[in-house]
């Protein structure tokens, strides 16, 4: 039985990174431990929660169920690569504006999965958003805001002006409700 190391050049967020890692480590472990990209989260570790979702060649996959050793020549994108220069990606900005993250643990996986969806389908319906995010569990169960945020981010990315209605921010159909 071998516990040898693998040396690979990985393409992560547009950069080529030479990495040495134990051969049996997953992409998730190598991203977090060797590359210090801790935005991608350990969740269930068994492919059931989506917290570890990253993009490989533009498609969302679960980094907990991928061996880093299999990733040579693949383009890997993590949440750290999402912002554009000093600007947040519209998905990140909209998630923040709409409070679409509660504890935030599932958010990186959702952002990356949503990015892949919007690259393929710039005008998804609510059902299409829900279907694309079906593999991402949010245990705060804030799904409604997440779907709304992806919908509004898609609108922003299409260059549409507009402000979400007040209830999107306050969860109440009465925008003038007194605030503490």
């Amino acid at each position: 039985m071998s516990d040898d190391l693998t040396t690979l050049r990985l393409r992560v967020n547009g950069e080529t990174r030479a990495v040495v890692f134990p051969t049996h480590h997953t992409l998730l472990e190598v991203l977090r431990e060797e590359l210090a990209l801790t935005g991608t989260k350990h969740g269930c570790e068994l492919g059931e929660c989506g917290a570890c979702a990253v993009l490989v060649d533009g498609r969302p996959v679960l980094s907990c169920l991928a061996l880093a050793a299999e990733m040579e020549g693949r383009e890997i994108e993590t949440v750290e690569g999402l912002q554009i220069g000093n600007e947040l990606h519209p998905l990140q900005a909209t998630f923040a504006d709409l409070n679409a993250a509660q504890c935030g643990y599932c958010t990186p996986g959702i952002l990356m999965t949503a990015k892949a969806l919007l690259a393929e389908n710039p005008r998804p319906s609510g059902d299409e958003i829900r279907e694309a995010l079906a593999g991402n569990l949010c245990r705060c169960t804030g799904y409604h805001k997440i779907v709304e945020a992806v919908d509004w981010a898609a609108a922003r990315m299409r260059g549409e002006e507009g402000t979400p209605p007040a209830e999107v921010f306050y969860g109440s159909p009465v925008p003038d409700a007194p605030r503490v």
Partner: protein
Amino acid sequence: MRPFDYARPATREQAVQLLAATPGRAAVLAGGSDLLALMKDGVVTPERLVSLQGLQGDHTLRFLRYTAAAGFRIGALTTLADLAASEVLRLEHPVVAETAGRLAGPQIRNVATVGGNLCQRPRCWYFRSGFGLLAAREGASLVVAGDNRHHAILGNDGPAYFVTPSTLAPVLIALDAEVVLLGPQGERTIPLEKLYRLPLAEGEREHDLGPGEILTELQLGPAAGRQVGTWEVRQRETLDWSLATAAVALEMEDGRVKRARVVLGQVAPLPWTSREAESFLTGKTIDEAAADEAAKLAVQGAKPLSKNRYKVQLARVAVRRALLAATGLDREL
């Protein structure tokens, strides 16, 4: 995960040799979505992983080819997302594309392969918790005495009580699909149905794969006018395994069934062909009453365990609805 040797052969033959060199101690790595989860749980502890992702040129196994005469040749590394996205598959065999597109979740479908789906290991919680595929202690099955709510209702005379996990397999078997297996002695093509076997002793596998043998290709003939329908019962719409499925394929002649295939999934240790339902349907015109009777016959021999009597009803409903879907009657009701 425990450490292992990682091999990335360039040819199919090298892959077979690497597997055959350490029989029982090497595992095939395709998409990894089942294997790596099993390894993390310590259910399997291979000393060597032979990845099929590095195969080169003509040896690659991710392809989907179609000819009108012969139908489909689908490489074992073709992903479920590939199947769901294939226009030609959706036209010729819509139920196959739809079934693939409904499995697991989107991220899993991007990596999970056809070969891996057909060769995935059972979801039995005794197996997944390290009690072995047959989960026997001192000659008695833990399943029979324990929590068997998800276990077999058919083909459960022992010693196997788990259920076959693949949702694709029953559909493909109903369509008379074949698989190509490559081993140290060369290639053989068998009906997909024959890939599955009942393990009789701990250590035996539920697939008819010899030492070093790998599944390389799925062959699926043209639809040829068959009426095909499926029904799947599960608790959640996504990220869930089926509780019971049924797939039917009917060759019709003058409005009557000339030949029927009725295959159930998740009810027995292997994809379960109901000869009773098939022979009943032959020569019949399908209406609601015939669908009811065939469904009744399909579960007639069921022997539910202490906690899974409900599955008899699920299986019965699945067969009935698959038949109605195949014949379009579900749209008229």
